[in-house]
């Protein structure tokens, strides 16, 4: 019975992850059944694909570097200073993490695009005929959006670690004669490095697999692997090349993910973590004030401006403030066959998200339970070794969907789910299934630390006091896991709400989700359509923000490792 339950997450992974990936492999190596290197040769042979890979890599590298440059001082401020509103700010600064890429992309066009808020103001004030800020479809827009998106990720990881690192070690170094600067380089930095590395890798992975941001902000001349896969498959129907690109993408992300899980394991090293409460100091002098103010300013400009621009732009028309775009969402002007009222898109997204959340919670919980099982005592040595090997490789295995590009996944579904044994192409279930796959890692990451933090002696104490295994679960483990599970559930919900890359492939025309509907509006010309896209993005932003508030409310301390 236990075995059967535990096999569910693996079965799900095999069916809806490895099977489509295997199909992609087959398609790239042997499109006609026999092994054919043509697609791969084309991939390696032409400059274009190498250029795509090169672009994907360097934009990710530059984005990561920019993110670290901004996030490190920010983390220092949050970790070392005590000031009013810090808690709230810290919470708000992590909001972008749950925002859909479509929303982020639109927020930046709303701020900096040719019709954006900033250009509008500048043109009006200085009576310019042309928008002075020409960032649309340049690399800067992509980099900016990536920084916006990942700043919070890096900030969160590094701050949490830095806070708990405490200030006693650098103080000890000071007492031994090291200057503050020296103490930082010889003591703090080496201890901090694993966290910075983990953050850098995660940010790099996110930027490497960036899809929505590049697709919407990059325009035709920029394409990451992810965007190229989408174009080859959806626009050019060049499936073998798309498959070959997916393969390339998979190889890269697997390596990166393996590095990430390794570096994350290293973060566990500091044994005596200090309570964060005692390590922060109040702002004492002008220097402190400068440091804090500059960082908070960066945060404000980076995070608050685009989002407010999105909201503001969605309610401003030619004649000033208006709710026209929101009203228009409910009117089908062109009598379009594909018109889907936004209410329906919201309903679709909500339903899919609820289903995906339930499945992700069930599977994530089972997977986490399986990962925390100790190898049974009394088994042979070989068996124990094998078990621990499986257990060690299972953790990154469950994380794979997080690293695998959503587009690759959607593409894999397109080519596998249209024929028996899994004929789900026209089924409504396909979208929630894809979302479940992407959301489950979040549930696992939320629950696993809580589960691991339950000391084994608690279970043993309960058993000795007469609790059978089911009672131990119900009276001891479940109450201690409840909150973490709730956090995981809300995470899963918001992830599903914002998922774009896979959904754009597999959603049926009649049942688009919010992000897909937004993308459709963007694809149509005219200020009205653009305004509606912004209005819908704002709606999605609000939904995710509410989910985010829920996560923060239920999160205990710094639960959840990413």
């Amino acid at each position: 019975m236990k075995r059967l339950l535990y096999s569910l997450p693996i079965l799900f992974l095999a069916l809806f992850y490895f099977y489509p990936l295997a199909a992609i492999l087959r398609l790239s190596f042997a499109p006609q059944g026999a092994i054919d290197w043509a697609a791969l040769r084309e991939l390696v042979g032409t400059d274009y694909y190498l250029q795509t890979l090169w672009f994907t890599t360097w934009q990710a590298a530059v984005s990561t570097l920019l993110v670290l440059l901004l996030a490190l001082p920010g983390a220092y401020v949050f970790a070392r200073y005590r000031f009013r509103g810090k808690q709230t700010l810290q919470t708000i600064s992590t909001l972008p993490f749950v925002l859909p890429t479509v929303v982020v992309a639109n927020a930046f066009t709303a701020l900096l695009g040719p019709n954006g808020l900033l250009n509008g103001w500048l043109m009006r004030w200085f009576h310019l005929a042309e928008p002075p800020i020409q960032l649309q479809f340049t690399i800067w827009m992509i980099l900016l959006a990536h920084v916006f998106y990942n700043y919070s990720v890096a900030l969160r990881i590094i701050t949490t670690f830095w806070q708990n690192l405490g200030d006693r070690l650098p103080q000890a170094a000071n007492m031994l004669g090291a200057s503050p600067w020296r103490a930082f380089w010889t003591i703090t930095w080496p201890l901090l490095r694993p966290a910075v590395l983990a953050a850098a890798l995660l940010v790099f992975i996110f930027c490497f697999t960036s899809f929505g941001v590049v697709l919407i902000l990059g325009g035709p001349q920029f394409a990451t692997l992810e965007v190229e896969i989408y174009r080859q498959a959806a626009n050019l129907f060049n499936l073998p090349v798309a498959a070959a690109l997916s393969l390339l993408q998979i190889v890269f992300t697997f390596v990166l993910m393996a590095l990430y899980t390794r570096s994350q394991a290293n973060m566990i090293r500091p044994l005596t973590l200090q309570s964060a409460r005692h390590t922060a100091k109040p702002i004492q002098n002008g220097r402190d004030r400068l440091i804090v103010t500059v960082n908070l300013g960066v945060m404000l400009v980076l995070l608050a401006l685009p989002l407010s621009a999105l909201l503001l732009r969605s309610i401003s028309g030619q004649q000033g403030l208006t709710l026209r775009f929101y009203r228009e969402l409910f009117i089908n002007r062109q009598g379009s066959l594909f018109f889907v009222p936004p209410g329906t898109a919201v309903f679709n997204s909500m339903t899919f998200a609820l289903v995906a959340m339930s499945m992700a919670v069930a599977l994530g919980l089972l997977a986490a339970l399986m990962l925390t099982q100790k190898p049974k005592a009394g088994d042979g040595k070989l068996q124990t070794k094998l078990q621990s090997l499986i257990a060690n490789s299972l953790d990154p295995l469950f994380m794979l969907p997080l690293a695998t590009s959503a587009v690759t996944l959607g593409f894999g579904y397109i080519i596998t789910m249209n024929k028996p044994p899994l004929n789900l192409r026209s089924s409504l279930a396909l979208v929630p299934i894809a979302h479940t796959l992407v959301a489950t890692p979040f549930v696992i990451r939320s629950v696993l630390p809580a589960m691991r933090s339950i000391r084994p002696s608690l279970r043993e104490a309960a058993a000795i006091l007469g609790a059978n295994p089911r009672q131990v679960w119900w009276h001891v483990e479940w109450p201690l896991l409840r909150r973490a599970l709730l956090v995981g559930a809300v995470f899963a919900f918001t992830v599903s709400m914002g998922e774009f890359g896979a959904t754009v492939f597999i959603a049926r025309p009649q049942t688009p989700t919010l992000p897909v509907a937004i993308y459709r509006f963007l694809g149509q010309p005219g200020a009205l359509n653009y305004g509606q896209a912004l209005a819908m993005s704002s709606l999605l932003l609000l939904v995710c923000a509410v989910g985010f508030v829920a996560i923060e409310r239920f999160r205990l301390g710094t639960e959840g490792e990413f």
Partner: protein
Amino acid sequence: MLLETRTLTKAYTPETTAVSGVSLHIAAGEIVCLLGPSGCGKTTLLRMIAGLTRPDSGTVWFEGQEITAVPPHLRDFGMMFQDFALFPHKNVFANVAFGLEMHGWSRARIAARVAEMLALVDLADFAQRDVTQLSGGEQQRVALARSLAPGPRLLMLDEPLGALDRALRERLMLDLRQILQRVGVTAVYVTHDQTEAFAIADRIVVMNGGQIEQIATPQALYARPATPFVARFLGFHNLLAGVVAAPGVVETAVGQLRIDDETPAVGTAVTLLLRPEAAAIVASGAKQEAGLQGTVTAVSFRGRYLQVWLAVAATRLMFELPITYDLHPGQTLTLALSPKSILIL
């Protein structure tokens, strides 16, 4: 015999055996201490008795019944963990009540029993407290109350004072012994601290390398350590290798020593234990045949006595001498050894 283990063996890895072939008897009402350095297998032995660890071979018997395969929750034993393992999401009352709930007690009986237990450990007013806000000593007493509440047939304590500081440990040792005796529970107590074992145990089982070195009452153990390991573990420093030269005489590196202990056949290699209180200073000039002449290397004032380190040839010995002497390192000293205080191990 209440509890019996027969040739219990457990190996976590094939290279290192945690417990090998341990057979042990525990009588009803007895407090038995498993004493030994960390890694000696005492905790593993305890966990096998508790049913938390399955032995590789050997059996556990309780009241004449084999219980080796009985899961822990059906054994009706109690256990106190080193980290106390209090449920962080339950308050003091709920922690103590947990075992009673598991045994299906009625609400009214639970309330009465919990109150009784909290009174026993002197925490009567703490029922509604959050366990995470208790001090170490309070947590320890809640853990004790919790493990005693269901009236366990056997109580196991795994280094229950190990997490506490020294002063608190000294005080709680006596409390613990008194409470255990008042309840009359049979207890197995694991510790690495000999003072604790001496204070609490009726009988001490000294373990080393997964095996039993010696089983004795605290008094007998101190008076007569059975092996060099036990002697060293109890803090005796003066162990000398020697060969029996004649009945009552052993030849050692520091010369021939006369002993009252029964000696084996002439020529047998033995280990001698010189108790620190064995020596008395011989006034300079007086001639004595059993004199032990050496140089003082260190003197440390210990209140009731002076601890004196003496280098005799290449051997360093430690003796406790009266504080009336004025001794300094470098001084040459002649000591007379009392044959009564020299033991053959």
